[in-house]
């Protein structure tokens, strides 16, 4: 992805002297996570059809992240959204919540039928997640830039309560422009919040266009490092790479630096024209186009992978 090309390749902060390499994922595990990511995309399409407007592309770029976190990395208990020792997940990019809801339902945090009323009057599921209404949502969002602070607060509160859980905060790359993110970044390093994991969905686009054109954020890894974080860069669509990285991070209990995972992704991943068109941040697919998108996600043998690679 050209947008991150200016950053020097990151040395592996967990390399060499530590033996934190978990067993490789089985092909079945990988296939399962890939299937879950597809599920996120398909449900996103289904739910946005109800709302008639939504953030397809923002959700598609983090579908593998959702899948890996919720089906491999995070410690959760089925049907117990308020289990006090659960890992937490917060979304700075709350506008991708449409992809999260199906997973929360799958975890038994609320009845699946609620999904069918997405954004309808009286239903708790809106474009942005509301913790007071939706079991399993660890924090409300929608105003970009607050989530890392809230996540840090959870780390601090957990410490006072004598609990150690991991707190994952997914941020947009456009979100890097909000100053509060850097306040939280500085504070997390100062607080040695080793169990705080920020994930930047580096999909290259924000609302008004390419992040680098709207308001450049590179060299992003350098920024996080200069703010005292351990930084990892990873292909955000490679579930095996993601799962391996998150497992390694979980094993490293001695870490006293917060971790930033920069996940290189494609905004709109899975639907070719969305990957190529900045305008898809928000939009709506009429039923026929929806069918085509679904077919593509289900893996029509179109040779798209190559074409997508060239897309930008």
């Amino acid at each position: 992805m050209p947008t991150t090309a200016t950053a020097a390749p990151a040395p592996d902060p967990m390399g060499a002297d530590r033996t934190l390499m978990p067993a490789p994922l089985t092909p079945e595990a990988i296939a399962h996570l890939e299937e879950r990511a597809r599920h996120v995309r398909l449900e996103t399409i289904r739910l946005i059809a109800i709302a008639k407007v939504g953030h397809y592309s923002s959700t598609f770029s983090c579908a593998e992240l959702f899948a890996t976190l919720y089906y491999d990395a995070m410690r959760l208990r089925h049907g117990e959204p308020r289990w006090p020792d659960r890992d937490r997940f917060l979304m700075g990019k709350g506008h991708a919540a449409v992809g999260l809801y199906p997973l929360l339902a799958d975890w038994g945090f609320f009845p699946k039928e609620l999904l069918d009323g997405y954004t309808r009057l009286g239903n708790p599921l809106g474009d942005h997640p509301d913790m007071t209404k939706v079991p399993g949502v660890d924090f409300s969002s929608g105003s970009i830039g607050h989530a890392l602070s809230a996540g840090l607060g959870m780390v601090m509160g957990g410490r006072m309560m004598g609990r150690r859980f991991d707190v994952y905060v997914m941020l947009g790359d456009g979100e890097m422009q909000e100053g509060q993110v850097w306040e939280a970044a500085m504070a997390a390093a100062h607080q040695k919040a080793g169990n705080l994991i920020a994930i930047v969905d580096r999909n290259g686009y924000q609302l008004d266009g390419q992040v680098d054109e709207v308001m450049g954020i590179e060299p992003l890894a350098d920024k996080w490092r200069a703010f005292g974080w351990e930084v990892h860069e990873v292909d955000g669509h490679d579930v095996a790479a993601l799962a391996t990285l998150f497992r390694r991070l979980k094993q490293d209990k001695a870490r006293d630096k917060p971790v930033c995972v920069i996940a290189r992704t494609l905004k709109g991943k899975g639907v070719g024209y969305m990957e190529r068109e900045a305008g898809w941040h928000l939009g709506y697919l009429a039923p026929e186009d929806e069918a085509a998108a679904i077919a593509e996600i289900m893996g029509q043998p179109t040779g798209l992978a190559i074409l997508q690679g060239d897309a930008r």
Partner: protein
Amino acid sequence: MTAANILAGPANPGSWQYRQLNARAPGLSYLSDALSALVEDGHLVMAGTADLQYSNGLARFAARHPDRFIQFGISEQNMVSAAAGIATTGVMPFVATFASFLGLLCCEQIRMDVAYSALPVRLIGHHAGIALGFYGTSHHATEDLAIMRSIAGLTVVNPADGPQLAAAIKASADHPEPIYFRIGRGQEPNVYEDLPDFRFGKAIEHETGTDLTIIACGTMVHPSREAVRALRASGLSIGLTDMHTIKPLDRDAVLAAAERSRIILTVEEHNILGGLGGAVAEAMAEAGTKAVLIRHGIRDEYSLVAPPTHLYRHYKLDAAGIETVVRDILA
């Protein structure tokens, strides 16, 4: 299906994407066009936004006057303080973002850098109220009028529609104070014809009545007018005032209405605390008017999520709802 048509993208006219938002919200073009007109009249104005140029339609202005447009990215506070800096050099900046972010997130920057510093910055808070429907509370602004009204030295305007906004923007070229413009989502039907008369602080009396007078602002003027028509048609004596300027409030208009009518009903797409209802309450209580005030709006709660039209119906903020509210009061 072939790879080709997948790659070609949606062909169906029912599909649309963010860049086409402008077309879906014709009311927004008034903003860009009014600003373009200022530029073309030789005014030293510029426009800026924080990653929302399609939501507020400023893309249209940017295309026409790229040298007068600044993209600030998702950094609203920097945008407001920078606008103040720009204003010190003799350029008049208009900066726009969702009212929730402008009126709340940037409230301190507005007080310090804009209002206290007395710089002619123009702040455009769009999609105010619950216009962003199922985007939810983060994107709703039902506090901004109360907040902006508490800030000394700031003019607070809530135009009823695009034409009135355009007139207000035109008038703002010579207005000495900084201004907070609170506008809707650009899908509201027009109340006025092109470039209606507009004076800051001078309310517009649509109808007078003795039973009840509605004082409405912003997006609530149109449904109130519809409601008033129906109510008058059924023989009730109902007045209607468009209180487009919340601050400075047109006290005379309030007191005249309170003199004539037994009941004043404020209607606003805002919390009933502190906004238009609050401002009218202050004027009435201070004057000791005989009339009683009833405030209609969002009743100090967080709105449900739903499409905006569903919410307007639910909260009785559409014409039928306002009509019901009045009938219930007078029953």
